[in-house]
């Protein structure tokens, strides 16, 4: 659709969000990502039956862990939309970026920069 969405987003494609493990999310933050969101099909429409439901549960778990260690659970989100909803995808991208901007950079990045200095 060639819609505009923020350039700070790195897209990682998966055959189904059910393939995304909690560890993938945690590792992303370990490596300095400021935010991560998992975009899956609308609930009830999953090609593989309930992959997107599993993904949601894992996102919830990741949130709890990120909160417990002081990184911030709001940095990870689950989003459901259909592959035809291009405009919504762009909108979500912008909303997510805004949210992460508000949350500030990943605290680990700051620590790493300090250590490197």
């Amino acid at each position, binding site marked *: 659709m060639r819609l505009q969405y923020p350039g700070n987003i790195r897209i990682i494609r998966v055959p189904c969000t059910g393939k995304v*493990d*909690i*560890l993938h999310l*945690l*590792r992303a*933050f*370990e490596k300095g990502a400021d935010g991560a969101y998992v975009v899956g099909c609308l609930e009830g429409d999953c090609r593989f039956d309930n992959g997107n439901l599993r993904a949601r549960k894992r996102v919830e778990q990741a949130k709890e*862990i990120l909160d*417990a*260690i*002081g*990184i911030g659970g709001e940095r990870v989100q689950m989003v459901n939309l259909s592959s035809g909803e291009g405009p919504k995808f762009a909108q979500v991208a912008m909303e997510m970026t805004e949210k992460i901007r508000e949350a500030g950079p990943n*605290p*680990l990045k700051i*620590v*790493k920069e*300090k250590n490197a200095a």
Partner: protein
Amino acid sequence: MIVAEKKPLEEIIEEVKDFNKILIAGCNECVTVCEAGGKKEVGILASALRMYFMNQGKKVQIEEITLERQCDHEYLEELRNSIDQYDAVVSLACGVGVQFMAEKYLTTPIFPGVNTCFMGVTEERGVWSERCQGCGQCILGKTAGICPISRCAKRLLNGPCGGSTKGKCEISKDLDCAWQLIIDRLKELGRLDDYEEIIPIKDWSTERAGGPRKVVREDVML
């Protein structure tokens, strides 16, 4: 199998916050099945701890390993050559494994990463429930395959008590009344008359009350 639950992250952090090189050791058996201490959980805990310490500005090295079991010598021996480099180990095995590791490696602090709960079954993914308390004298033949010691909140051998309501225990609507289950099953087996047989006073000496237990099989010892 033995069912355990992950300890809260805050508790584990509190246990290991003063160490600099930590090994997270999982177990490939029971705790893997109940999703508390297997390879996956080891990875998640390690990642979370790394990020926590980094955020605190502390340089801590966290490494991961998952052993086949932690209740047999041969698997714990696999750590013999590497364990001394760690200040501490968080074992995600059940209480048995944590202890066996501690008995083997006397100079390394071993911390538990899970709370060991009971011997039970997987009712469905994510739901595990208790079935056995290891009383040492199984009476399941008399009670139609349902154990009143582990499934009755009062471990009544001649139940049900007067609090049984609609098949549920008086202490919780989510708990089946073990004696209701026994009666139902006796009915299905055509053995409801057995209900009136008084089960005699139990010999608890083979249970925890008699002291820590041991099984010795001379016929298989080398």
